[in-house]
């Protein structure tokens, strides 16, 4: 009888300790996305956005309208990830971010959603192969999305 009681006691205590360790670990760990250097990752993402936008313009000049949809979709998906890449406490010396990102968080996230919306619109328009309609979107795209967000939230040329 006493041995059973000791065993049950050990199982209960052991389970509680295991739960505590797992719970503690879960509470401490950050989402395991990216390289671990969130500033480096977001700078790569932004460069990729730029490269896609430059590529989209080159494709337009070459008359390759439908292919622009790939670039637009890439930018749209990148835009979805932007807020995740700017967590609290990630304003380091290497970053060109402005503190306004965290001071005006709602505006910042709205700017990211705006980029996503414009990119999706460009994607859908390019898929129709209508050059004039695509040009109309592209004419304002850079200024309305990239420039607008950068002016508010990115430091000027250093």
């Amino acid at each position, binding site marked *: 009888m006493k041995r059973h009681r000791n065993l049950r006691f050990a199982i209960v205590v052991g389970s509680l300790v295991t739960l505590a360790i797992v719970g503690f670990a879960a509470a401490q760990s950050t989402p395991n996305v990216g390289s671990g250097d969130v500033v480096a990752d977001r700078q790569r993402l932004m460069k990729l*956005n*730029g*490269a*896609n*936008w*430059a*590529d989209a*313009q080159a494709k337009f000049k070459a008359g390759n309208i439908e292919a622009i949809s790939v670039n637009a979709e890439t930018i749209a998906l990148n835009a979805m990830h932007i807020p995740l890449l700017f967590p609290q406490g990630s304003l380091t010396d290497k970053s060109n971010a402005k503190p306004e990102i965290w001071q005006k968080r709602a505006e910042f996230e709205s700017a990211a959603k705006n980029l996503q919306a414009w990119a999706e619109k460009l994607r859908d328009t390019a898929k129709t192969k209508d050059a004039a309609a695509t040009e109309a979107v592209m*004419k304002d795209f*850079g*200024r309305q*999305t*990239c*420039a*607008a967000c*950068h*002016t508010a939230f*990115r430091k*000027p*040329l*250093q």
Partner: protein
Amino acid sequence: MPDSMRFATCILTCLRAGFLGGILLWCGAGLLLPASAGGAGTPLPDLVARGQDIFGAAGGCGCHTVPKGTLNAGGRKYDGPFGTVYSANITPDRQTGIGAWTDEQIITAIRLGRRPKGERLIPVHPYTVFNGMAAEDLRALVAYLRTVPPVNRPNQPKKITVPFFESIFLPTWLAAFAPKETPPATAPTSGLARGEYLVRAVGHCGECHTPRGMTQATDNSRFLAGNPNGPEDSKVPNITPDKDTGLTWSEEEIAEYLGTGNKPDGDVAGGLMGEVIEGTAAGYKDLTKADRLAIAQYLKTIPPIHNKVGK
């Protein structure tokens, strides 16, 4: 009728005819000529449209509009070694704007920096550079300015902190150091002359892009070579054709940038340059492709200056 009376009647008739004829001539002239002093008459639509083009070529006169504020209502703050000034209300409001000024008075303020009562403007408004604008363009610009919705917004008084600044220092500075552009007889319409006119006078690019010396005047021996201490703490790039530190984009790329803000690497102009490309009621983006190419062509001809600004 006696001779004397006939003579008098003749004189009176001639005078009446002359008087009436004069009135008819005056009215006829008023219909044919563009609007003149006091804003009397309706300006020709072409003149207003041309004025809006010039407004855009000047970057939308954004210094006179607070960001996200009302067009041309003024109130934008500028701190300098002299103190602080706020841009003026240039809407056609009669009490607080320029509505009661004559065309000549407005033009005098733009290019000579004097208000109707003689007060000198602080050259944050670069009147010695705007002096390079052709008279016809200034008249068109004024015609356009009068069509902007009037806003009642009293000007904020300047705060000059340097003693004798306006009475002694400013006139000396203007005479000795200020860059001076002289107006062409007519505005050039194409080619390098057009590019030069748009860059040096209307677009007043040097005000941001030319480095400044200790007197705060632009150092025109290094025209457009970049300013690490630009307005609103900006680092303004060197846009001379220097291979190592200047602008190496093609003319097409420069023209594209001015029209859309798109850079060759896929980035887009933000900050103050983004602001002047976007403009207000018009901006650099509204320049014709020919004008943007003329600007680009001119930029390729200015002396390349080695001056590294920024990283």
